[in-house]
């Protein structure tokens, strides 16, 4: 039996169309647009001006404060402008636009393909390197990695979990990374373990990736303390709290962090980026993006420079089908629908999904028939119908008592609802209001 989280969950169609498509390195585009805010926290401050010559890997925007991340030039060339652009979130922000000339990298980056296994750095050096290299969580949340590597005072961490679950339908970038860069991913895991001073590492992956699981299990024999944990295929298996519960049986308290139960979770892509930063001195300037969709001609997994326009990625996958009605940045369950494709790839882009127009609209809404399917589907043990109604009626205090802030917005409730109620829309509204009210209470 595969391990799993105990309560709730759904089984959306997997649609992993690109699971057997090897990672293709996309040519450097003629121009890249690099936003200064690609992470949770304060935007970085641009360090270059129009006309400046930059090399790939050169710092172009400096992290502002502790919760922030450095931004590096993903290409070599000339800064064409520092301007305001619309990014994948749909909001405007500052970005450095670079016209590409050649592909010259900063000399200190080790570009050789050889695997460097031996970890020579100390904890402090590893954390500093991750901070310098602008590493953020690549699972989608883009939380700066160096902060997660620093255990808060008074807490103890005894285990690192590498999240290779990839429970979102369609996406396969983590799957391919585990298959093709398995040894580097495991080395990255070992580095994270060393930075946190722990002996135990677990790579959790859903059982729908048997090739990756057996490959990593084979490789893990050479890595002390690292085991591979196959998990049941069930959404949201890759939710941080669900993954910890499935792998360890520990339950992160409400409002708490994984480190409260002695665990730090990092995504497979992050582990690979940590390997590249620490062993190869390479900043985060590339990532693997799945471009897929039922009608897409040539769906695949592409390794691209940050700042590459999505249009270039979509072209590489055979172009946008005529019937496309929705473009999703991320997975179909938690990703964001884009209003335009003329936006750059950022550190958090794990996939681009093109939905035909038939799938791009929501079904007609009927009254709630109180079937309780949302309650049964909620992996956090909440009652989505209730907190949705409370939010709709602006009963914020009651919503807070019903633990609305525990919601991780996985969308299982809205997926499963036979009446097609916009449950999560209202819950998001309520959750953000309750969080704001709670903050105001503290500051008063």
């Amino acid at each position: 039996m595969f391990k799993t989280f105990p309560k709730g969950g759904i089984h959306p169609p997997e649609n992993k169309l690109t699971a057997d498509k090897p990672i293709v390195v996309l040519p450097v585009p003629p121009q890249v647009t690099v936003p200064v805010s690609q992470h949770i926290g304060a935007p970085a401050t641009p360090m270059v001006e129009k006309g400046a010559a930059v090399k790939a890997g050169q710092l172009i925007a400096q992290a502002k404060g502790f919760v922030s991340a450095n931004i590096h030039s993903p290409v070599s060339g000339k800064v064409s402008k520092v301007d305001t652009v619309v990014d994948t979130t749909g909001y405007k922000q500052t970005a450095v636009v670079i016209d590409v000339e050649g592909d010259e990298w900063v000399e200190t980056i080790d570009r050789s393909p050889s695997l460097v296994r031996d970890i020579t750095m100390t904890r402090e050096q590893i954390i500093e390197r991750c901070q310098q290299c602008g590493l953020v969580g690549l699972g989608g949340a883009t939380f700066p990695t160096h902060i997660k590597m620093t255990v808060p005072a008074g807490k103890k961490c005894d285990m690192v979990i590498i999240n290779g679950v990839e429970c979102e339908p369609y996406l396969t970038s983590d799957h391919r990374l585990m298959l093709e860069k398995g040894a580097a991913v495991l080395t990255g895991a070992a580095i994270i373990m060393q930075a946190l001073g722990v002996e135990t590492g677990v790579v959790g992956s859903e059982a729908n990736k048997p090739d990756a699981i057996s490959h990593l299990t084979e490789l893990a024999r050479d890595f002390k303390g690292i085991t591979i944990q196959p998990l049941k295929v069930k959404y949201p298996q890759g939710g941080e709290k669900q993954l910890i519960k499935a792998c360890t049986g520990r339950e992160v308290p409400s409002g708490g962090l994984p480190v409260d139960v002695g665990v730090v979770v990092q995504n497979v892509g992050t582990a690979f980026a940590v390997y590249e930063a620490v062993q190869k001195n390479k900043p985060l300037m590339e990532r693997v993006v799945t471009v897929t969709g039922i009608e897409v001609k040539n769906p695949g997994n592409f390794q691209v420079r940050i700042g590459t326009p999505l249009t270039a990625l979509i072209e590489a996958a055979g172009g946008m089908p005529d019937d496309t009605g929705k473009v999703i940045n991320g997975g179909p369950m938690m990703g964001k629908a884009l209003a335009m494709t003329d936006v750059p790839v950022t550190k958090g882009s794990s996939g681009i999904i093109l939905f035909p127009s038939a799938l791009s609209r929501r079904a007609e809404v009927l009254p709630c028939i109180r079937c309780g399917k949302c309650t049964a589907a909620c992996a956090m043990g909440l009652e989505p119908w209730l907190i949705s109604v409370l939010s709709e009626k602006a009963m914020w205090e009651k919503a807070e008592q019903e633990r609305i802030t525990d919601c991780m917005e996985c969308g299982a409730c809205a997926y499963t609802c036979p009446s097609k109620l916009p449950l999560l829309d209202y819950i998001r509204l309520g959750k953000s209001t309750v969080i704001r009210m709670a903050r105001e209470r503290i500051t008063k």
Partner: protein
Amino acid sequence: MNNILNVSPSPHQQSPETTRRLMYGVVIALAPALAASIWYFGEGAIIVTLTSVLACVAVEYLVQKYILKTKPSLTDGSAVVTGLLLAFNVPSNLPVHIIVIGAIVSIGVAKMTFGGLGSNPFNPALVGRVFLLISFPVQMTSWPVPSGFQTGYLDAVTGATPLGIMTEGVKAGETVTALMEKIPTHMQLFYGYMGGSMGEVAALALIIGGVYMIWRKIITWHIPISILLTVAIFTGILWLADPTKFADPGFHLLTGGIMLGAIFMATDYVTSPMTHKGMIIYGIGIGVITVLIRNWGAYPEGVSFAILIMNAFVPLLNMYIKPPRFGKEVKHG
């Protein structure tokens, strides 16, 4: 590249299961029991079912169109389900006008006055059935005896139900053992060879429908199993205590409306609890009240009343029975 893109918050996909599909799933699940009813009661079963379904659908349509003045929502299938269940809960020789009155009460009073689909506190078909039972006690308790396919449905040969024989007999001082002689064997009861409401007799067919609904994930096991187990345990204890005064659990599980009630009536989404724990408490409540009415009440059968009484507790169960939350609550501040 000139596509106009739709933008909406996640999730971007929805399950193919819709309210309409769930309702027609229930209709499919009711099909074996309907076939059994036609087999046992003939023309009467067909007339009663058609009348009830058409009347329920018509009442819903008329109320929505002329009283509420909203867009009629016939396509959701809920009125069809109510119509079928109302038919299943009445004798197969019930005159048409009484069925129509039942449909008006079920849909018009028990469902639409509260706001229609999703808003009614009590199971509409059961409200209709109990209204008819109180208003037309003679017609509602003259049970045709199964005798193969028959025509001329109002002239059907009638007889008492096994539960009726049992209640009357025990009151008259006969022992259960003697009464069991007058009642079909358990195996016959299982196949449905007994007098009773049109759709409640064939336990086997109802169980097939229930298994189908659980397999299709239309319902979960919690409500039917907790009702049936409670009835089995409660009547089992009574039977072991005094087998001359109380019938055995097999008899109680196979007679009357317990199978129909546990599988199809109590599991109505709108009027049952929304958490699994709540469902089990609700099921135990129905089981206990049913056995109490059957053994000590004025009526020989009590499933309808038991479900309606527990329907009244559903808002409370939803309010106080919470699902197991993930993660302990920590005190902040």
